[in-house]
């Protein structure tokens, strides 16, 4: 009998605890690991320490693993999970998650803090689905020491011009990376590849991460965009089978064929490409801004600038990570209050100081110039060169990237020709974006 009473008491205590937990907090499912987690933890501490914050609206963080994160989130949201009130979203997956989320109204400061370009990375069908917390875009990373040596050596310049003449049909001259077009990028990559120039100090001129993986297409598609490429025209017609895409894909293919990127790079993603550059055997690469500290630490003479230009100018893909409201949230009121606070200047500055990478408008970023000069560059590039393809936030955007990854990597690896790759991509995108 005594045991039974203890058991009953225990069950009751657990029930109270469980019930209390369900209502006593705002649960936030964040992006695990890396600076995003550290920054979210830091701002959560700031928020929870507010004296006027009710106990039941304090924020509790939840982290899982990055592996298959978006797939698991998809299943959780579709199943109406109440395990979290606020969840991570990304620009390219908003359309996929929107049916299971609710739009949010941000604070009055949001426009001034982030700017319209960055806020748009969290919009779908004209509605705001999240607070932008981290912005990703691309830098051109290059070895300044190699460029300086090239620019100071007339014989090297002549060789550079001869290589450009032979492979690109025109005698290009070496330039500072900030002034590069994509043709200069290709010429530079060929010059610094030992397969083309046996005297090159590096084994490869560049590294293109070309694993059949959707994120790699994000890195690539600034290239066709600068030639005027887009996924769709205003009428909704798929436009990837265009001169812009053909030019960009062919130029990249030339680098694969001539050994200017490691032959294994058809299996490379972010980490492998960074390892290649960090080894000192690669002269330049286009990579996510998040790699800046890693690559600079590995190669001290690394310089960064915006990706090369095409006839339409310079462009960089941008996408944001952010936090939005789960439609099945149990504590919506508390969740909305947290999201609104997260879109204030106070929160954005605290998030940035703790290591996050929010895309901030110039005026806000200037307040961090001493602590985070990189955010000034990110903010400037995002507002000047940032773009999202037509259809880039649609429900099937991720699948579009998947289809492109499969077809384009097949072309680069030589398993199919350009016409087939573009025909298959167009067919897949027509089906996905109809």
């Amino acid at each position, binding site marked *: 009998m005594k045991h039974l009473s203890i058991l009953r008491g225990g069950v009751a205590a657990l029930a109270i605890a469980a019930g209390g937990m369900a209502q006593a907090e705002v649960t936030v499912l964040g992006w695990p690991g890396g600076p995003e987690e550290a920054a979210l933890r830091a701002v959560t501490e700031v928020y929870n320490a507010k004296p006027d914050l009710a106990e039941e609206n304090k924020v509790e963080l939840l982290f899982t693993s990055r592996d298959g994160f978006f797939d698991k989130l998809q299943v959780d949201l*579709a199943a109406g999970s109440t395990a979290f009130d606020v969840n991570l979203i990304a620009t390219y997956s908003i359309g996929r998650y929107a049916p299971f989320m609710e739009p949010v109204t941000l604070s009055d400061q949001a426009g001034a803090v982030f700017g319209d370009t960055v806020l748009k990375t969290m919009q779908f069908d004209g509605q705001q689905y999240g607070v932008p917390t981290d912005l990703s875009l691309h830098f051109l990373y290059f070895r300044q020491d190699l460029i300086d040596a090239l620019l100071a050596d007339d014989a090297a310049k002549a060789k550079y011009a001869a290589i450009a003449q032979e492979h690109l049909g025109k005698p290009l001259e070496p330039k500072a990376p900030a002034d590069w077009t994509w043709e200069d990028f290709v010429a530079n990559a060929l010059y610094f590849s030992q397969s083309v120039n046996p005297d090159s100090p590096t084994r490869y001129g560049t590294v293109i991460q070309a694993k059949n993986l959707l994120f790699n297409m994000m890195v690539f598609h600034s290239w066709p965009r600068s030639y005027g490429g887009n996924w769709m025209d205003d009428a909704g017609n798929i436009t990837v089978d265009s001169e812009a895409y053909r030019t960009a894909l062919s130029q990249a293919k030339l680098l694969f064929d001539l050994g200017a990127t490691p032959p*294994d790079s*058809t299996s490379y993603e972010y980490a492998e490409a960074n390892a290649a550059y960090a080894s000192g*055997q690669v002269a330049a690469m286009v990579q996510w801004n998040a790699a800046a500290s890693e690559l600079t630490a590995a190669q001290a003479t690394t310089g960064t600038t915006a990706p090369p230009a095409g006839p339409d100018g310079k462009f960089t893909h941008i996408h944001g990570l952010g936090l939005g409201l789960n439609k099945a949230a149990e504590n919506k009121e508390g969740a909305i209050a947290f999201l609104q606070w997260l879109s204030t200047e106070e929160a954005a500055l605290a998030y940035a100081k703790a290591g996050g990478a929010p895309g901030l408008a110039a005026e806000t970023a200037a307040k961090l110039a001493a602590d985070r000069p990189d955010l000034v560059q990110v903010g400037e590039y995002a507002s000047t060169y940032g773009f999202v393809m037509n259809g880039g936030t649609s429900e099937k955007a991720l699948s579009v990237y*998947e289809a492109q990854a*499969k077809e384009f990597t097949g072309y680069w*690896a030589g398993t199919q020709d350009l016409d087939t790759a573009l025909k298959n991509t167009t067919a897949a995108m027509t089906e996905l974006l109809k």
Partner: protein
Amino acid sequence: MSKKTRRENAILASPMVLFLLAILGFPTVLSIVYGFSETSFETLTRPEFSGLANFADVLSDPTFWQAAWFSLRFGLITALLQCALGLALAVYLAPLVERHGWTVAVLIIPIMVAPAMMGLMYRLVLHEFAGPLPHYLYAWFGTAPSFLGPAHVFKTVVLAETLQWTPFAFVLFLTAYQAIPSELREAAAVDSARPWDVFRHIEWPLMRPTLYVALFVRFIDGFRVFDNIYTLVGAGPGGSTTSMSIYIYESFLRRGEIGKAMAAAILLFLTAFLLLAFGQRLTKGRTE
């Protein structure tokens, strides 16, 4: 079999059958429902019956056939390689194992590693700039093959699978080899039979049933390969390393084509089932 025996068998088997129904029944029924329905993540709880549309979609998808061809080639080649190597190792190392039984534990270490971990390990080991193998090849020969490049990736994944699972075939063959009555070998020795003749006329015929079992187990395992290839090279450039399982995974989670993925899974199951049935019949015919 008497009526009483049959009843007893049914009673004894029922807990296992009920357990299997509980564990496998629900997902199986759900897979079949989704396989015949138009389903997405938005309509998981209200699938709409679409007849054989998903199956038609799958069968008319070139990527499915590419994946099927990859799985077939991969399954056959790896099964043959593993069985050939496993058999050779078992026969060659049997005397050593007889004296030092612990060597088996060392030899089967690769199968204790999770395939996904094995894929990640090779991803590191074979990386041109971070991996020890290319590093030493460059240091010694000034060059290294691109193990994961388009020209070699199939050979690399076959080799990785073979190195991991040959010990499994080895254990099967070793067990069969050790089960051969020693009197047979002694009688052959009395007749002055050479080792090759002993193997050819005594050991090989007695180990043949094990070979069929090993071939089938390894073929099915290779045919449905997923983890190590996915973690090593993903679906491959142009889908060149997309196995049937990777095709199903990507259709389901990456493209949200749940009905199509389930239809492909049902086809994979039926193929494996038919191959197994055919294999059993073949094995039975050869051993009778």
